[in-house]
């Protein structure tokens, strides 16, 4: 059977849960293909991995597709994975009395300049009409620096956000899942060349991935257990991740849906805040050729 190489941006991020479920439930096999999962350091690295020919299908935001096209890496989003920043939260230490408005002039930790967390911070600045310093501290530096008081607040991803709020170390002052208007935050991406050369492979892969989403929605216990195992965390937090993130994911993935174009546009507009200059038209970023048929 052919092997499709799936590139995932971080281990403890919902795309990993999807892909792992697809593998463990043998959904790729049911489609007659095999999958090889590779985990990268972040979105940009994943995209570079695909550009370097080390991944066939990856999950990333539209902004990277747009930037890539300007750099000669021709790819498109073939399936819509999420329409919101689920699990992403602006957090302060529990003892802190600061609200979003009070962050004016303060320091807020983000993972990296130009990353998803940076975009959310920039959106906050714009939306709440305040100004604060964004401090890139890397994934591993978010919580330590927040707890140590080097920053007043941090933009935290899931399930880390659930974990520290559950442990009582930090509390949420802004939930981006609800605050930010729906936009296409991430989709499954393939190179144009690949889509042309092996359309069936792409179709089968998205079938399996959306089959996994369907399976997860239907099987809470199995999924929570899987998350707990993959992320090495207690089941309560895995449960939170399931309820607040997995359950919010797109189930159809259809790029032809009516609201998609606007959602992609919004996403690109947000990316412009972060310094993205290489903007291409929405039509060039997406492809509606593959409508996922979830594998059963």
């Amino acid at each position, binding site marked *: 059977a052919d092997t499709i190489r799936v590139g995932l941006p971080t*281990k*403890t991020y919902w795309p990993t849960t999807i892909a792992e479920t697809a593998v463990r439930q043998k959904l790729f096999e049911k489609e007659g293909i095999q999958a090889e999962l*590779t*985990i990268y*350091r972040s979105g940009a*690295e994943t995209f570079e*991995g695909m550009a*370097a020919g080390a991944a066939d299908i990856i999950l990333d935001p539209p902004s990277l597709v747009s930037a890539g096209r300007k750099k000669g890496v021709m790819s498109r989003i073939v399936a819509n994975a999420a329409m919101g920043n689920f699990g992403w939260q602006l957090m302060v230490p529990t003892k802190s009395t600061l609200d979003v408005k009070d962050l004016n002039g303060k320091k807020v930790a983000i993972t990296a300049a130009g990353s998803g967390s940076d975009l959310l911070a920039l959106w906050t600045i714009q939306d709440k009409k305040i100004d604060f310093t964004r401090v890139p501290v890397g994934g591993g530096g978010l919580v330590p620096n927040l707890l140590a008081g080097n920053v007043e607040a941090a933009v935290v991803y899931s399930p880390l956000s659930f974990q520290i709020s559950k442990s009582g170390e930090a509390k949420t002052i802004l939930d981006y899942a609800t605050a930010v208007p729906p936009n296409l935050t991430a989709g499954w991406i393939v190179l144009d060349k690949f889509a042309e050369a092996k359309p069936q492979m792409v179709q089968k892969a998205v079938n399996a991935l959306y089959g996994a989403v369907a399976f997860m929605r239907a099987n809470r216990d199995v999924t929570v257990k899987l998350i707990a195992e993959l992320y090495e965390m207690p089941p309560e937090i895995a449960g939170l991740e399931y309820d607040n993130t997995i359950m919010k994911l797109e189930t159809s993935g259809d790029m032809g849906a009516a609201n998609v174009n606007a959602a992609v546009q919004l996403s690109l507009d947000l990316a412009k805040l972060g310094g993205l200059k290489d903007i291409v038209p929405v039509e060039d970023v997406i492809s509606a050729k593959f409508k996922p048929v979830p594998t059963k």
Partner: protein
Amino acid sequence: MQSTFVINLARIAIIIAVLALWEVLSRTGIVNPRLLPSASDTFVTLGDLLQRAAVRKDLMVTATEVLAAFALAVPFGAVIGFLVAENRYFADVAKPLLFFAFSIPKSIFLPMFILVFGVGFAQKVGFGFFSTIFIVIMSTTTAVESVKVEHLTVARSYGATPWQTAFRVYLPSMLPVLLEALRISMIFNLTGVILAEMYASRDGIGHQIATWGENFQMKQLLAGVVMVAAIAMTFNELVRWMETRCSHWRT
């Protein structure tokens, strides 16, 4: 005899003191235990991790990659370093270039390695090699330059071939510098492989460590660091053992 005993005793005492300090800092809350879990907790976690087949497999993968990269980079770098030191022309041409290559953060080139090797064993080994070779070259050059002229003259007068000169004069007289270089190279090598694993991979301990770090699993992170450090230290001790065997003539 007695002095080695005292020294070992002193070493153990220092190690115990450091561990005790770590434990006390964390236990008394002088340092937030969430940021610095106590030594005992870390070692318990380490025990747990080592029980896991997956972690053991990751360690094996990393160890294999590290060894392969090292086995390639050291002889290769040593030969180039030797040439640079021995041949003035070659040195004039290559030294500044090698030096520039050495002073660029290597991680910038990680994508290139994926471009050439894909993601996998070859890419990790390749990047480990790339991270190590420059320091090997530079250290070899220095080591060669510290060799005494008289000794070379003697060897030449007996008609030593270049190989014989290399093995019978250069090697023994530069041994201390060379072994130190070996140790430092090993650390560069290890860091290189781990960086490559953190960047993109399917397995390996570096990949695990990155995940623990991003998930704020400090106990696991520290245990992982201890694991990696332990590997490097074992190697260190191996080199040291070799050193004491070979350099006894120095007083």
